[in-house]
Each structure stands twice: as C-alpha cells, then as structure tokens.
C-alpha cells in the first residue's frame, strides 16, 4: 500500500471536511468531476453541499472565501493552476491578507495553488508563486516537498487562523509516494534537514528538494558531504535552522524553481549574510530558474529550471571556492 503526494492532498481534505463542519471546498471543477488533477475526487459525494464548483472567477472565489471566513467558516479554495491565482490576486493580498490587521477579525482561508513546472505545460500552467505571496504581510506560504508534509501541512493550513497560500507542486503529484500517511509532523515554521552533511548547505523547498538530494547523493560518490535543508514553509522562514546548518558547513547554496529576481533564495541569502556573515567560508550562491517565462518544449523546459545536474555543477564550483 502506498500513497502519492496528490492522494495525500485529497486525504487531508477529506479529513478536514470530516473533522470540522466549518470546512468547505470551492473551486473550478472540484465538485462531481473531482478537480482538474482529481485532488477532490469523490469528496463532493462524501460531503454533500460542501465541495462546490465555482464559476471561472478567481477574484469572486477569493472574495467569497473571505466573506465565509468572516462568518467563522474555513474555506479551502482550489486554484486550478497557481498561475491563475493572479486573477484573484487583489482579493488575496488586499482583502484576505489585510483583514485581521485592519479589523481584528481572523481570516482562516486556505488557498491551494498547484504550482511549478511539468514538461509541456508552458508559460501559464507552470509558475512558482511563493515569492510574490510571501512578500505580503498577513499571509502564510507553505511549500511541502514530501507526501507526509503535503498531508500534515495541509491539515495544519486549514487549522491556522490566518490566510495560507498552500503551494503544492504538480511535478510531485503522481510519482512521489510514501508507505502511509504520517501520525506526527513538524509544525509549520520549522525547516527539516532532508540530508545531513558537513561540507556545504543547500537550502531549498518544494520539488527542488528532490533535485538537491539527488545532487547531494551524486556528490557523495566524490566524497562530499552535502547538507540539504528543506524549508517546508517559506513564510515563516526558519532562519535558525538555516544558520545552524551554515554554522556546520560554512558554505551556502540556495536553490529555487522560481525566477531569480528577489524571492526566497535572495531572502535566505540576505538573512544569512546579515545574521551569519562570519559563519561563511565562501560567498553564498543561488540557483534559480532562468529569467524568462517557463518554456513549453521539454528541451527548453529541462534547461529552464534547476536540475540535479545544475545543482551538482553549482555545488562543485562553490566547494572549490
């Protein structure tokens, strides 16, 4: 018996609906059809009236969620693709993110963003949105990299009293598997050491965790011990775990699938540079996607995002510095 990353997301929603009558799911095709990726498969049948198709209206979907949250409910909004959340951007960053600060009324909305690239998906079905949402005060931004985290962090997201942007990576949906769902989990805000090492710290999150672990395994055959830190949540960002790791290794490489300008990798480097400068034996480095829209063709797509091979190359260079 094994469970995929996607099934874990479906199971977390089933459990949230079962355990908490305040939870409902609203999004395009999430009802009888079960969602474009089947993340809500059979949920409309199991929980009548609580898993509802929305019109193609991301702005109104988010506005409705905020209104329902004001009434004490805990909506889960499925954006069909993270890319389309830009159409609902205003309601997320100006309505949901400001509500508590302005009025003292919490806004417990979970927004699921199927994010990241898969081959053949092109510029508008592949984007990583975590940096843009993390920029706004009042939002929590989660980026689970494992089946276990997809499950436990989605359940925690629904329980959090603030708006949560849940970035679930489409590349991990089907091929990432676990034996069973977890009984316990690290809380949101704690990073995880995905692989221990002493020569170099790679800080990463979401699907890039797997590219980085693969890179670390390859470098291990050359005798290098690479530590991989999986941030799990990019906001809040667990600076302590990152700094502690850099204190052990003296070298930092940040890897993200998002675009290079600003963003999570830049934030991590800024924090380490200002709070742990004396721990660094070499200038910290970043590896991101290329600074273009995400390409369609696999030849271009595999060269656009960081891969294990690109991580190995960047790590080798840094290890020699």
């Amino acid at each position, binding site marked *: 018996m094994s469970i995929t990353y996607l099934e874990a997301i479906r199971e977390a929603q089933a459990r949230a609906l079962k355990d908490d009558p305040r939870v409902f799911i609203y999004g395009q095709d999430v009802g009888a059809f079960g969602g474009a990726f089947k993340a809500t498969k059979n949920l409309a049948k199991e929980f009548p009236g609580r898993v509802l198709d929305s019109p193609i209206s991301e702005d*109104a979907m988010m*506005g*409705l969620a*905020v*209104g329902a949250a004001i009434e004490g409910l805990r909506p889960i909004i499925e954006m069909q693709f993270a890319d389309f959340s830009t159409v609902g951007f205003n309601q997320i960053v100006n309505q949901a993110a400001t509500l508590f*600060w302005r009025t003292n009324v919490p806004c417990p909305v979970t927004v699921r963003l199927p994010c990241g690239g898969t081959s053949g998906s092109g510029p508008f079905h592949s984007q990583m949105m975590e940096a843009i949402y993390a920029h706004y005060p*009042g939002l*929590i931004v989660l980026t689970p990299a494992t089946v276990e985290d997809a499950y436990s962090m989605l359940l925690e997201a629904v329980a*959090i009293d603030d708006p949560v942007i849940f970035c679930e990576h489409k590349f991990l949906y089907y091929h990432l598997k676990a034996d069973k769902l977890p009984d316990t989990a690290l809380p949101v805000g704690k990073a995880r050491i995905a692989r221990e090492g002493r020569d170099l710290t790679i800080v990463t999150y979401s699907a890039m965790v797997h590219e980085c672990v693969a890179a670390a395994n390859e470098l291990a055959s050359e005798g290098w011990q690479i530590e991989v830190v999986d941030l799990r949540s990019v*906001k809040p960002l667990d600076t302590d775990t990152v700094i502690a790791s850099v204190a052990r290794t003296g070298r930092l490489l940040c890897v993200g699938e998002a675009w290079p300008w600003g963003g999570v990798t830049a934030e991590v480097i800024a924090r380490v540079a200002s709070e742990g400068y004396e721990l660094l034996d070499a200038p910290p480095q970043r590896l991101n996607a290329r600074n273009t829209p995400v390409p369609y063709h696999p030849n271009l797509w595999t060269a656009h995002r960081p891969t294990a091979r690109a991580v190995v190359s960047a790590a080798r260079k840094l290890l020699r510095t």
Partner: protein
Amino acid sequence: MLETVPGLPAGDATALGREKAVLAYGFMLRARLLDDKFATLYRAGKIHGGVFLGRGQEALSAAIGVSLRDSDVFAPLIRDAAGRLAFGEPIVDAVRNYLGSALGPMRGRDGNVHRGYPREGLLPMISHLGAMISVVNGVLFARRLKGQTGMVGVATLGEGGTSTGAFHEALNQASIEKLPLVMVVANNQFAYSTPNSRQFACDNLADRALGYGMGAHNVDGTSLPDCLATIGQAVETARNGGGPQLVVASLLRLCGHGEHDDAGYIDPKLKASPLGRDCLKLAEEYLLSQKLADAAQLAVWRSQVVGEIEEAVNQVQREPTPDPFTEKWTALSSPHLNEMHDEI
C-alpha cells in the same frame, strides 16, 4: 423622533411609509451635517489623508440603511455615511476613524471611509472597486451553509465601479448561488472626473441585470420616498427568495470626488437639471408637504444633530491616538507564526 444613539428600531420592516421617511430623513441629516463637519476639519488641517463626502447620495444611502435589519449584511462604499449610521454605526466611530483615534474601529491602522465591524455585518471596504461584493456573497453563502435564512446583503458601488471585472464576477456568482444580494449602484454621473460617456456604452446600467439573471430596478436617487419604495422592494424580494437584485439610482454627486477636488469638470447645466437637485432639500419638502414635520420641527432636529456631532468631535479630540511603541506590528492573528525577523 431622532434617537440619540442611531440604530434600527425592532421590527423596522413593518414601519413602512411615513414613519420610515422620517427615520431615514434623520440619518440623511446626520450624514450631511457630519460630512460638513469633516470638510471643515479637513480644511482646518485636522484630518490626515482624504475626506470623501456623500453629498447628494444621502437619500439612496439612508434608504438602504433603514431597509436592513441588524442581522443583515452591508458593504457600504465611500458615499454611504447615511446608510452606515442607519445600519447602526455610532456617529462617534465615524469621527474616530477620520480623526485617527486609537479607540476607533480600525485603531488608526486604516482611516476615513475604511471602517466597519465584519462580525456585525458592516464590512470595511478596501479601495479596490467591486471587491466587496463577492465578500458579501461569501457572508451570505456561509450563513446558508450554517442553516441561517431570512437575511439580505447589500453592496454599494458607483457607476464607475461597474466597469470592473470584480463587479461582473461577483454578480454572476451571486446569481449562480441565488444569494439574497442587493447590488445598489449610485449612478452619480462621474467616476472621479470621468463622465458616463467614457465609462459605459449601454443605455441603462440596470439592463445588465438581465445578463446576470438578476431582478432590475431603476430609481430617482434624489427622491427619498422613491428610494425607500424601490430599495425596500428590492430588499424584500431578495429576502423572500427572489434571488439577487440590481438597483441603479440616478443622481448627481454634489461635491468633488474628495474634498481635494473642486469638481470643476461638472457641467453647470447638469447641476441645474433634475439630476442635480439636492435630495436633502427634497426630503424636507416632502416631510413638510406630507405634514410629517413643520419648519420649526426641522430646525429643532437640525440643531439636535449639530449638538450630537459637536459632542462626538469633542469627545474624540480628547481620545488617545495610536502609539507606534505599543503597536504590535504584526499582520498575523497566529502569534506563533510570526517570524523573529519581524522584530528586528
């Protein structure tokens, strides 16, 4: 007739006709004199940021407020002082939000027309036009999920806001869900400086209701009795399961977009047309003609409201302003999720 603490009397839905007109007039008068006070304070440099008045829209706004019950939902916009007061907002809280009192509903974190009490059904507007409508939908949707019935939600907007995608998305959504939403559009002829000819190309904005599957209503926004009748009908239709309703009121904004704007772009001919009539004066004429009040009574009410406003301003001017040293500086309600980084 005017209450010291504004609010709806119980069973207001049955208080139709003459009594309701007097009640609504009271809120129109309060709103007009309160707006005048804000304009004076603005010119005296006592208000940080902008001042946005509802002059010319009081009849429409008050008619909304007196047509709603405490259990209803109201998302007012910038020219709805009358409706807010009629829905139950204390004058003192309006003053607090303009003067930045730490005791106000937004505690200095937001100002002027951005105020409300979400849990009490008075939603605090954000500046992005059309964005509050789907939030009203969400409140109504949630209450239906919780098994609550019999309530209505009203959102207001100017004609300029009807050009947004948010307006379209939200009305379509309300119609699909058959929510008891009443969308009230004040067609005041100008969106800031932009005239209707550059805003929409249909003959009548209410015609759009057909495209959404909503009920359509047109009303002369300068006439209090007409507004009471039309808004009252739209609200009761929605309350009784008739689905969402669109009301378009024709009137003229009798002020600038804000007090920083002299509105020199408004054609004097338009001001002299029936659209440019002052709804407050018309309401007074109506009360006199219907023998609901005489000139002496109107003067007494006016002086009573001036006193209420002066008292509120005097009180608020003695209240503390927000303190950056005790401000928590966090936008999250979950303390454990605040980053250490925030405290640097």
